[in-house]
């Protein structure tokens, strides 16, 4: 599995309240949530993001509330992968459970800038910065999580399990 797109760059501690503000949580429709994705941190994000684009952030991405609406909004906005130095733990497991690819890679978080074109190979965990000609080794998922991702989320994984 691969992803390719342009990068939107964010800093430390991007919380789920700015990813999808609580005032929109009276909806659980992915398309509706996507319309307000990142609204409180970057008003222009949703107008600029293209299918396949990639979010790169620094420490503790997705901290705060457990709202699964946050990874759902990001995925529905067309983002193909989130790369961060570290993720908050509930966001991390929610992303795996709904099938949004995420990669922890401190070097990539530092070596990639907004607008760079980045390509990711999920099988190897390799991240290529095509704009700058650099590459980074991201952390690969343990086998247990790979199974959940291969099943495209926890629900199908459970359905497939005997």
């Amino acid at each position: 599995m691969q992803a390719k797109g342009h990068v939107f760059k964010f800093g430390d501690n991007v919380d789920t309240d700015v990813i999808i503000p609580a005032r929109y949580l009276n909806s659980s429709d992915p398309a509706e949530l996507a319309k307000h994705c990142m609204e409180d941190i970057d008003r222009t994000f949703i107008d600029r993001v293209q299918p396949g684009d990639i979010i790169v952030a620094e420490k503790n991405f997705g901290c705060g509330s457990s709202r699964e609406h946050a990874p759902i909004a990001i995925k529905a906005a067309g983002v193909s992968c989130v790369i961060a130095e570290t993720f908050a733990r509930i966001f991390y497991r929610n992303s795996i459970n709904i099938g949004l690819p995420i990669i922890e890679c401190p070097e990539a978080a530092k070596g990639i800038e907004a607008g760079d074109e980045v390509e990711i190979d999920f099988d190897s965990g390799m991240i290529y910065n095509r704009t700058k000609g650099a590459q980074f080794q991201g952390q690969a998922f343990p086998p247990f999580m790979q199974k959940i991702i291969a099943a495209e989320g926890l629900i199908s994984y459970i359905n497939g399990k005997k």
Partner: protein
Amino acid sequence: MGMTMTQKILAAAAGLSEVKAGQLIEADLNLVLGNDITSPVAIHEMEKLNKKEVFDKDKIALVLDHFVPNKDIKSAEHCKCVREFACKNEVTNFFDVGEMGIEHALLPEKGLVVAGDVVIGADSHTCTYGALGAFSTGVGSTDMAAGMATGKAWFKVPSAIKFELTGRPKKWISGKDVILHIIGMIGVDGALYKSMEFTGDGVANLSMDDRFTIANMAIEAGGKNGIFPVDRAAEQYMKEHSARPYQIYEADPDAEYDETFVIDLSELEPTVAFPHLPENTKTVAEAGEVKIDQVVIGSCTNGRIEDMRVAAEILKGRKVKKGVRCIVIPATQKIYLQAMEEGLLKTFIEAGAVVSTPTCGPCLGGYMGILAAGERCVSTTNRNFVGRMGHVDSEVYLASPAVAAASAVTGKISEPSEIGC
């Protein structure tokens, strides 16, 4: 090698004699929790499962608390979805308007969590129940759906940070000051993926309400859970609130910790977290002159009876400063009633505060106290992120009920001693 308290609970729930940090396990669950925001997503996910029935109708708790009584049509529809699901599956612990309270205050009060339990909740502050010596952690809606159907969840066994508490806190210093001090010290990702285990002689000097407040905010340091040893006070609490048997786990003497911090509770001062992160802490003395427009006293962090009592003690015979709105929200119906019987509600109203039915309301910027651009609020809630209580240009300062009440009187961030308390 020895195990931490959290590791021992997880090992038992996974049917293993030993677990190590980093190990992936599947554990049996004693309780699966959801609220009016997260449950509808979980219910839709559950519809996609081959097995659509709940694993045990007594081990699921559904609490309508965030946007209820319904704030708008969409909220009403979410609540209806949860209500119908609860009815169809005969969920024993479904709490609707009239019975509900803020989930993390309600569940211990109803005796639904006891020591040794493994609990997941589709709400990040599910870590609150660590005060009772249970392992509890926040998850998302898909985990909740899987938990409701299978009674199991996957976990990566966490390593731990030990917080050794000593001494006795001074007057007006509460669990909120303790946890804000800790988050200020280690940062909002200081305990990322880890357990925060609280130990030491100082624990005995903290009430159960203080411990709930501390465990509640473990997530604000990135923690997977926060947990307290089960002492006489915790046993007493469980005996008063629950008929369920409990199991006490203790950390092994040779358990390994990533770090140990010693905190002398007697040295702590009234503490405030400045916008826009809970780690931006200062003592009130360092805060300088910060004028405010609103005070909120409530939430799953500080909406318990002791919080009401502290706020009332400060507001008794005083007035909320003109130009400041003070909103008091008891966290559950029981607390509301108790506050009424003790005359606390009268004190609040006479002081010029408003008192609301239990709800999360303003804590997450839902309703009942939304801030306009440029407005500032001192709040006993747990998050002060950008836009958390309203406009993106508003500001939330996190503090204890004592500081919040004193600030309501002066109209700026203040500690009780400033008004002669």
